């Protein structure tokens, strides 16, 4: 006989993800889950965004990597609070790993938390970390067919950043084809075409990010001492 279950396969992860989300909300911070292939520019996007944040916004970073602390060292050198998670070969971050890392961060003193997932366009899509926004970073050298080949991760995105726009001509990248692929699976997510190297296109991305209600509240409530 059959016993009906009707339960999500990753429900144990989802339960912890909900706890993480509650912790982020309690701290009043905005958490971003950055997902991309290796080398698309997740760390570059974090650094270039942090460089342009208005003073009242205090950023922090959780770095997920298979091994090493190369990215965490780069972030730490900028004086940002950072926690490294080494997945030991695991191809994605999961909610329990984030929950374990949170006590190492001064959450009450952060407004914007970047969670840099393991470089991978497949596995991270299935695992809710509890972040408020799923940010998928694609880059021009990967080609304009990525939304068609990896629809799962693009379907889950709240926003898509297409990085390395300074290389569009070199790779004969068809931005319209890329955008249509995104719209195929996700008509709600905005797509920002920018270059972390040159800074081109950054204003629109930053305006969108700072337009999130959590960011707006922090900017509105910023005391004069925190304004730069």
């Amino acid at each position: 006989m059959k016993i009906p279950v009707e339960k999500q396969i990753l429900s144990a992860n989802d339960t912890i993800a909900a706890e993480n989300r509650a912790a982020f909300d309690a701290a009043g911070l905005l958490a971003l889950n950055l997902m991309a292939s290796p080398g698309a520019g997740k760390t570059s996007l974090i650094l270039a965004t942090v460089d342009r944040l208005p003073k009242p916004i205090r950023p922090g970073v959780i770095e997920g990597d298979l091994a090493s602390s190369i990215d965490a060292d780069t972030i730490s050198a900028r004086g940002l609070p950072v926690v490294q998670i080494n997945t030991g070969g695991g191809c994605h971050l999961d909610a329990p790993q984030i929950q374990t890392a949170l006590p190492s961060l001064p959450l009450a003193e952060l407004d914007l938390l970047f969670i840099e997932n393991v470089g991978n366009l497949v596995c991270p899509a299935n695992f809710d970390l509890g972040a408020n926004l799923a940010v998928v970073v694609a880059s021009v050298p990967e080609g304009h067919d990525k939304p068609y080949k990896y629809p799962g991760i693009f379907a889950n995105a709240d926003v898509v950043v297409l990085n390395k726009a300074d290389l569009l001509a070199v790779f004969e990248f068809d931005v319209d084809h890329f955008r249509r692929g995104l719209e195929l699976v996700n008509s709600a997510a905005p797509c920002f075409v920018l270059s972390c190297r040159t800074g081109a296109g950054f204003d629109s991305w930053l305006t969108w990010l700072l337009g999130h209600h959590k960011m707006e509240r922090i900017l509105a409530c910023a005391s004069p001492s925190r304004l730069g």
Partner: protein
Amino acid sequence: MHELSVTQGILTVAVETARQHGVERIQAIDLVIGDLSSIVDDSVQFYFDILSQDTLAQGAKLHFRREPGTATCWDCGHQFQVSPPLSSLCPICQSAHLQVSGGREFYVESIEVEDEDTGRKADLERQRHHRG
């Protein structure tokens, strides 16, 4: 590689359900997986055979029901089933104005157990209840 975590999730959900129903042996687990969820069936069964050893689900067979995504053409209204890599054009009118929905399912639908198993457990439950 994420098939390992996914398999652990399947096992956890199935064993929890079996315990709740007082079942001692799970014969099969019915899964519903959308084609846009990147899961390799054979890998999951392979991991499952290892992870389920010494559990209520040891030796259980995994049944996958695959759900395709559906593309709808905004121009001619044609609907067709899709799986990655997605088609960028409508096969009828060649429009690039398509929208894909569905294919995202990712859940345990049911577990299959022997009738006597649940029956015997139900009897035990009733006896326990009578004893007070």
